[in-house]
């Protein structure tokens, strides 16, 4: 019985602490369908509705964009009285800098709980490469950043949210790095090329055979002339006995004396 009570107490305690923990909000990327959520140097976050329960007339919500590795640096500075001007935007990022800055989002009254909507967004970096201390300037290209919303009252931070998850900005690659060489042969090209080559070859072979066959036929064919006579010997006179046609009988007696 006692163990039962103890277990119940422990459970309640964990539930309570969990409930308290989950009350601290975490900034997120806008759930709206925006293609420009993350670019090379800007981010679009969900507006901080219902992140802080306080109701104070002069409270303002500010945003802290920071390089993820410098998050602890801000956490250490957050109790400073001059936190708003401690790291001005123009000198915020660099090897010797604090790598975070603060920019105003709006008065707490602009973000009531019941007006929370996924389609309301806040663009980090909308002021471009600006020069004032707390302007909404662009982030370093390709860096890994995290965000924190803070509640500011009389220039001092009174409440904070958790750090958001790390967000990696796009690092633009050079277009020359795209490989635009030959990719692959499509099936159609292979079919057309092979079949046409074979057809051309066959046609050529048949053509050569045709000329050869027709050439041969021309030479072996005997010439038949139906109308001409052919006789091996041709005599103009049709004489059966071979006699001398002109015989001199007067010559014979002279020969007998």
């Amino acid at each position, binding site marked *: 019985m006692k163990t039962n009570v103890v277990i119940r107490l422990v459970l309640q305690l964990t539930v309570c602490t969990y409930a308290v923990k989950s009350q601290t909000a975490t900034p997120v990327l806008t759930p709206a369908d925006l293609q420009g959520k993350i670019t090379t140097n800007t981010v679009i976050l969900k507006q901080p509705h219902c992140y802080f329960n306080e109701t104070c007339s002069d409270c303002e919500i500010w945003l802290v964009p920071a390089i993820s590795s410098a998050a602890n640096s801000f956490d250490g500075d957050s109790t400073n009285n001059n936190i708003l001007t401690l790291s001005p935007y123009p000198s915020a990022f660099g090897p010797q800098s604090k790598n975070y800055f603060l920019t105003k989002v709006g008065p707490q009254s602009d973000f009531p709980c019941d007006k929370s909507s996924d389609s309301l967004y806040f663009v980090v970096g909308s002021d471009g490469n600006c020069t004032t201390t707390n302007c909404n300037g662009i982030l370093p290209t390709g860096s890994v950043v995290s965000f924190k919303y803070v509640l500011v009252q009389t220039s001092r931070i009174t409440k904070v949210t958790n750090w958001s998850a790390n967000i990696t900005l796009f690092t*633009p690659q050079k*277009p020359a790095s795209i490989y635009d060489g030959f990719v*692959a042969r499509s099936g159609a090209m292979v079919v057309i090329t092979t079949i046409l080559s074979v*057809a051309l070859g066959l*046609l050529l072979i048949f053509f050569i055979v*045709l000329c050869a066959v027709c050439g041969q036929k021309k030479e072996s064919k005997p010439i038949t002339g139906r109308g001409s006579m052919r006789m091996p010997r041709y005599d103009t006179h049709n004489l059966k006995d071979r006699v001398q046609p002109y015989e001199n009988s007067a010559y014979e007696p002279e020969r007998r004396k």
Partner: protein
Amino acid sequence: MALGGLGFLMFILVALNILAAAASLALFAVAIWVAVDGYKLYAISAVSGKDDIFAAAWIAIFTGFAFFLTCLFGIYAALKRSRNLMLVYLIIMFIIFIFECASAITAATNRDYLVGNSNLVKKQMLQFYTEDSSNGKRITDTWNRVMQEGKCCGADGPTDWLTFDSTYKTNFPKSFPWPENCCEKLSNSEVKNPTSCQTGGQALFKKGCFQHIEWVLSNYTWAVSWYGFAVLMFVFFMLLLAMVYYVQLD
């Protein structure tokens, strides 16, 4: 072969020649359609130096018309039953056959180079869009028209402009992350909703343009190479028959 058989063969040959004349006239017409380039995408193939699809179309124009004339001559040669004429017909058809083969194969091969995947088109777009050269102007005009008519952005999507550096980004660093023509425009060519265009909301066209470009160039290619292939196969068997007819003539 009996005289009756020869007459039958002649009749078949004349009929096939008439069909081939009609088919090659159609090839002539289709090749003209490709060469005219109704979709006006010639710049994309010309700037990359791979415009052989259109060269193949020009060859097909000539071979299509030449096939047509030679088939008519073939009808005359078959009816005259003349050996010499049939030989001339066969030789001319063979020569045209070779050229048409070249056209069909060239078109099919060149299409693979150009639109096998989106890399070549994407790289060309990133380098030449808004570049201040003659090639740049042609590509800029072509892409502006394609993006507005096809309601698309980039080669694979708007993220192409984020993932890569581009001449556009160098020339217009403070403008939208993607070209104006990626967003809906009014009739006076102003962006309809600049905020939505900047953040990439409803006003931005989300699909890539490569699909449309690939569809057009593939259609051009298949018109020249597959239809040319069909005509060639028909002519191949007709020529075999013509050779048989030639041998049977005396």
